[in-house]
């Protein structure tokens, strides 16, 4: 599969009478995007705001972050099975609005989490402090059930992102990157001396607020399968995951998965990037066994030499991670796993809820229990009402001077387990 990704750099976002992109500036008609958001009758009202890097702005509670894209050539459309009709994506030409994001926020449940600070120490930990953010806060109709609200906000975000992506359809990209994968046979013939390596991505799939969708299918109902690594660039995987802000994968991360991108960088040079394997993280232990057995079986059948495994979330998924690692290694396939740590505020506790000697190559996204002080900022988009209730906060969270004492886990993307974060040992 060959996908041409056209990057259109957005330098600024402004509200205007008409939506358009001109000289790198995204003009957004509030009226138009409001109409797009309100297409769903479950949303009573929506407010839009713009947050720019460096501004004294705190966005919370964040639900999802989405990069607008448009499919210009090739099969299917962005977010297949969700917004576009079901069709295999990942080939042809796609444009992305780089440097910006649509951020959805709203109180789905009373302990909703996720903070994006656009300045200060918090901004150093969330990758979304560096993007120009069009924030939409959605209020639902009265007496709505949380899962209906979550779904309504999820879809509203995608619709607005697709609407904005469409504005780029006729533009010329500032930069174009080409991603090309081989079939199994082609890869073996083309790179006979390179190790065969795949990416195993674990998707959060436990239940309400913990869901991920693949071509519109709830990931808890899939068995592990293989994809072309370019499919995610067209939105084949989307997030319905609201909890665990620091180590969940917002849709933006699925679209820009750094493991996929970095593996493409090495494809044909140091290894042959064979495929993208997806699996789930269910709560039922027999499901875990089935999925990890299946993943290991696929690795064996594909004659892989190595895999990189990324996790999503904490606790329950630690077990899936270790089961995958152990079983894949037992098939003679080397693994490197990417996780994050809950090692306690002092960093002295055991980092994962599960372990095995086979997991001898581990990359960490950081300790989510690490404490950070977030100073008071001038403006809040969303609400601070829940900030003492979210994971990693406590009754001492809101201090007298208005600053917040929290753990890193409150910050969206702080310890992301695909490496889409700012923490580093360097």
């Amino acid at each position, binding site marked *: 599969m060959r996908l041409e990704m056209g990057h259109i750099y957005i330098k600024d976002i402004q509200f205007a009478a008409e939506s358009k992109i001109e000289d790198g500036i995204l003009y957004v008609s509030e009226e138009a995007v409001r109409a797009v958001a309100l297409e769903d009758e479950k949303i009573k009202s929506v407010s839009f705001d713009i947050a720019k890097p460096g501004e004294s702005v705190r966005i919370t509670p964040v639900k999802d972050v989405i990069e607008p894209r448009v499919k210009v050539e090739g099969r299917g459309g962005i977010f297949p099975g969700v917004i576009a009709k079901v069709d295999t994506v990942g080939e042809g030409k796609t444009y992305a609005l780089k440097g910006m994001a649509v951020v959805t926020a709203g109180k789905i449940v009373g*302990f909703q989490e996720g903070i994006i600070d656009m300045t200060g120490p918090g901004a150093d930990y969330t990758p979304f402090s560096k993007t120009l953010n069009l924030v939409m806060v959605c209020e639902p109709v009265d007496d709505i059930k949380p899962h209906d609200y979550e779904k309504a906000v999820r879809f509203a975000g995608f619709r607005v992102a697709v609407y904005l992506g469409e504005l780029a359809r006729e533009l010329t990209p500032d930069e174009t990157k080409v991603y090309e994968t081989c079939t199994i046979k082609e890869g073996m013939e083309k790179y006979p001396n390179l190790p065969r390596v795949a990416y195993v991505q674990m998707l959060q799939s436990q239940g309400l607020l913990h869901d991920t969708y693949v071509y519109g299918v709830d990931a808890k109902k899939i068995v592990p399968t293989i994809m072309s690594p370019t499919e995610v660039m067209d939105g084949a995987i989307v997030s319905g995951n609201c909890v665990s802000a620091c180590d969940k994968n917002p849709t933006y991360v699925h679209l820009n998965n750094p493991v996929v991108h970095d593996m493409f960088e090495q494809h044909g040079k140091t290894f042959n990037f064979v495929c993208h394997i997806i699996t789930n993280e269910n*709560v039922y*232990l027999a499901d875990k066994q089935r999925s990890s057995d299946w993943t290991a079986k696929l690795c064996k059948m594909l004659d892989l030499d190595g895999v990189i495994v990324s996790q999503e*979330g904490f606790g329950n998924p630690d077990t899936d991670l270790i089961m995958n690692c152990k079983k894949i290694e037992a098939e003679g396939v080397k693994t490197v796993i990417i996780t994050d740590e809950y*090692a306690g505020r002092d960093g002295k506790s*055991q980092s994962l809820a599960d372990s095995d000697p086979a997991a001898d190559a581990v990359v960490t996204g950081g300790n989510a229990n690490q404490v950070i002080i977030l100073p008071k900022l001038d403006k809040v988009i969303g609400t601070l009402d829940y900030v003492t209730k979210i994971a990693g906060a406590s009754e001492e969270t809101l201090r007298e001077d208005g600053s917040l004492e929290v753990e890193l886990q409150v910050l969206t993307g702080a310890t992301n387990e695909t490496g889409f974060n700012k923490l580093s040992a360097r």
Partner: protein
Amino acid sequence: MIVFKSSFFYDKHTEVTVREKRKQMGSRDYMVITNNPLVLDRLKETHHIVYRDISYEEILREVRDRIHEGHTLLSHPLSGSVKPNETPYKSIMLSERKGEIDEGSVQLIENAIQACRKFIFKSDLYEESVYDDFQLIDWSLLESGMASADVW
């Protein structure tokens, strides 16, 4: 007379419900250990529910005791990304049948109890409506586990 009639019908209905319940329970090989009142409310007529008004960590200990009696863990004790001690509710599925002590289950539950202590206790800080949300999330996690179990 009217009272007698309604009482008569009520008894008949109850009898059917109990018979039906036993039949349904017999077809399942799991019980649910929970401190979530919503789970009790939704499943008490159809499932074997062990409800205890105790903390998250105490539920884990209750489950550990039963694992040592020979029951097998069927759902992950740390299901959900809502952290232990953040949510007060936990529902866990265990096998109805007893056998040899399952080492995998012992390891999972011990790790879960250890993990629980890493999180600051704040389950008692919320407004009432937030508890409803926590109950619903726990129910949803359990429901997804039961959906898998009920396939058998």
